[in-house]
């Protein structure tokens, strides 16, 4: 008799989701589905809005990564109005963006994903959270984590207006220059960020790498997929979060594609399934072959591990050192182990911190020249950034007054959606045997998606309504035997 397990809602992520596990007659997993039962209407209600409002409207897709949407939108406006911002404006945007990457990655490591390792994957659910982390690492370190995020988010607020829903992005630049006092704040914050990244990498070594069980978990086949990887790169194919060309490497790590953001429709398309509101992006060049990995499947990944896999090198020295340590420990590039994303996230935190140091020291960073007034008629604008959770593309079309006639958004978690679906299914098959599984084991199934730091809020920007995570276990006759739900 087949059983079903439903985990609802999945927790410690942005947005809502549900895992539905079908068991076969022997009690093993037949198939596990990750369903996203929410949708909002951003692309539709963008129609009719002023183009310059899009960076502020689309930031409301996600209050955890509002800066990513704000910046992708602002860059799309540069393109829409065919305007090149002054160098100082670009540098300020990138510095603020790097600060955002640092604090957002810190949020995930300490608040969302980290509790699984620091407190333990099967620890009691009441402890698997930031408070449990504080209990484990001590209040002093806890206060450092909280104080650090406060410092960096304060700097972002001052530069961009509001850390949750920034307002400073305009076509052709930013609304205000950086004062010398604020520059000093960024210099100090950047130095702190480098130290904080070093400290976070050390926690990872001490807590995760020093524990053979965790290393075994990370490298186990249950959490491994051989897919394509995508990321934004500078001219030397080094990681860049703010600008560059999109590069895709194949499952062997060889360059497969390199293209500009405005060519995205030639290479990325979205597959639709009737059982989820989330669309599944895939590489058009390979095609949709279903939920499967390997070189013949168009399934690809974005986010920290994918970016490291897709890059020839990190753009800064300490991050490069950290990346080399990761690749040599895990058997070379590319690394296909999903849970290694947690490590790659900390490597990127260092990368963003070092970039901040460089930009904060740039003499041009306080230049008052931060705006170029657009003069050309708007037509089509496409902007891309690397959100913490992966490649994010905003595409706007307008009438001659700059009123949106069409908006299309490809967000990070959509790019990862197919691989996340694969990950949940594979982890469930490896871990769940029979309907009587305990809550800790189901958390290990959840870890398969949590590593991606998915944002289902972002991914389902398309229609209002969100929903919690449910896991349902059904028997082979389709009878529900167990339903676990979290809201």
């Amino acid at each position, binding site marked *: 008799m087949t059983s079903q397990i439903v985990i609802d809602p999945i927790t410690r992520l942005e947005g809502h989701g549900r895992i539905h596990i079908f068991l076969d007659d022997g009690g093993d997993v037949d198939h596990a589905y990750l369903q996203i039962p929410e949708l909002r209407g951003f692309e539709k209600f963008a129609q009719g809005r002023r183009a310059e409002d899009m960076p502020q409207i689309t930031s409301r897709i996600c209050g955890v990564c509002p800066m990513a949407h704000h910046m992708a939108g602002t860059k799309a406006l540069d393109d829409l109005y065919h305007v090149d911002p002054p160098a100082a404006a670009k540098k300020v945007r990138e510095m603020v963006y790097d600060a955002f990457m640092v604090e957002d990655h810190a949020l995930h490591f300490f608040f969302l994903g980290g509790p699984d390792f620091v407190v333990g994957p099967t620890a009691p659910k009441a402890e698997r959270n930031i408070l449990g982390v504080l209990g484990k690492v001590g209040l002093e370190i806890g206060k450092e984590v909280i104080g650090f995020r406060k410092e960096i988010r304060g700097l972002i607020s001052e530069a961009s207006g509001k850390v949750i829903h920034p*307002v400073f992005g305009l076509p052709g630049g930013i609304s205000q220059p950086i004062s010398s006092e604020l520059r000093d704040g960024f210099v100090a914050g950047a130095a702190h960020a480098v130290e904080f990244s070093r400290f976070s990498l050390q926690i990872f070594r001490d807590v995760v790498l020093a524990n053979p069980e965790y290393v075994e978990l990370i490298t186990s086949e249950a959490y491994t997929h051989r897919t394509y990887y995508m990321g934004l790169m500078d001219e030397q194919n080094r990681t860049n979060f703010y600008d560059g060309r999109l590069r895709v490497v194949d499952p062997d790590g060889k360059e497969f594609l390199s293209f500009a953001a405005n060519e995205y429709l030639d290479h990325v398309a979205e597959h639709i399934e009737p059982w989820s509101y989330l669309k599944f992006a895939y590489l058009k060049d390979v095609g949709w072959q279903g939920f499967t990995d390997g070189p013949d499947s168009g399934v690809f990944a974005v986010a920290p591990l994918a970016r490291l896999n897709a890059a020839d090198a990190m753009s800064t020295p300490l991050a490069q050192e950290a990346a080399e340590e990761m690749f040599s420990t895990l058997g070379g590039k590319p690394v296909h182990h999903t849970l290694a994303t947690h490590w790659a996230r900390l490597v990127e935190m260092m990368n963003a911190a070092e970039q901040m140091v460089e930009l904060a020291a740039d003499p041009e960073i306080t230049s008052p020249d931060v705006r170029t007034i657009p003069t050309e008629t708007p037509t089509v604008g496409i902007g891309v950034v690397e959100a913490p959770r992966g490649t994010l593309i905003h595409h706007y079309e307008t009438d001659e007054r700059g009123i949106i006639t069409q908006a299309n958004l490809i967000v990070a978690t959509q790019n990862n959606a197919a691989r996340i679906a694969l990950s949940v299914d594979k982890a469930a098959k490896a871990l769940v045997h029979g309907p009587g599984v305990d809550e800790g084991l189901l958390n290990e199934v959840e870890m398969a998606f949590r590593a991606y730091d998915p944002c289902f809020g972002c991914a389902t920007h398309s229609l209002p309504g969100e929903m919690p995570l449910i896991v349902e276990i059904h028997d082979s006759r389709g009878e529900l035997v167990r339903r676990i739900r979290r809201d």
Partner: protein
Amino acid sequence: MKPKVAFYWCASCGGCEEAVVDLAEDVLAVVEAVDIVFWPVAMDYKLSDVEALDDDELAVSFINGAIRTSEQREVVELLRRKSGAVVAFGACAWLGGIPGLANLSSATSILEFVYRESPSTPDGDGVRPLEETEVPEGRLVLPHFDEDVRTLDQVIEVDYYLPGCPPPASLIAQAVTAIVEGKLPEKGSVLAPDVALCAECPRADTKPEDLKVGAFHRPYEVIADPETCLLAQGIVCLGPATRSGCDAVCMRANMPCTGCMGPTSRVIDHGAKALSAIASLIESRDRDEIAVLAEQIVDPVGTFYRYSLPASLLHRRVDAASATTSGSAKS
């Protein structure tokens, strides 16, 4: 015994959750003072944990986000039953917020765009998400979407409102303190100062007493002086029609107020109030000149009702073609 508290999200972005996390070390003080028994973004408690509580056992539930699905209705009704007080947390729960702009489109037309018209969705196969799908292993279901976005108090009774997108940290801290100390104001209160934002704007001194506008400029068309009243520079700023309490952070960043703090208590319809406040600034009495100025405000709904469409007298657009069509994704 410590008061029990729940945080929950509906149709929202997670920014309200981040605003709570942004209380930083103060959040540790909150954790000391109350028992958080439900908070999906940060904790692994389940809905069954809430179901197991006695009625009114929760001192307060902070609920953010607008309401769009039957599922959300069920959860907020459950939280209402279990809570002594419910706080509509943030612009979406209070007024509908930016996701409330979806009331400009029918649910059907949204589904049509996302799953057919979008340029990255290949034509042809016609697959759409369905409320029920038979997969080889069994049946999968998705929730039903209502035709419109509603505010929290259009679904359940609400005791207090915290304004803002997201609510400012100082207002959250004050609200939590008031709850912990049992010093709550009159039911139905908005927990923020009840005066217009101009009162706390650093540019207030430069706002002419008899302010008149000869031309409206869109924010990207001009480089705004960082110290002068933005309205006096012809940039539409909703400060005069919007509640204070945010410390005028947008104007401090040289950008206009877009109204996320909502109206003061004397205003029924925030958008209508904002529209009349701006229209009253038009200097000309000449019909043609007024028409030119009105044309400069290219998106009145998106400008004046950006955060409050579901709460407004308008509530939603009804197209003749879609008025009778259900927004659900039925097969």
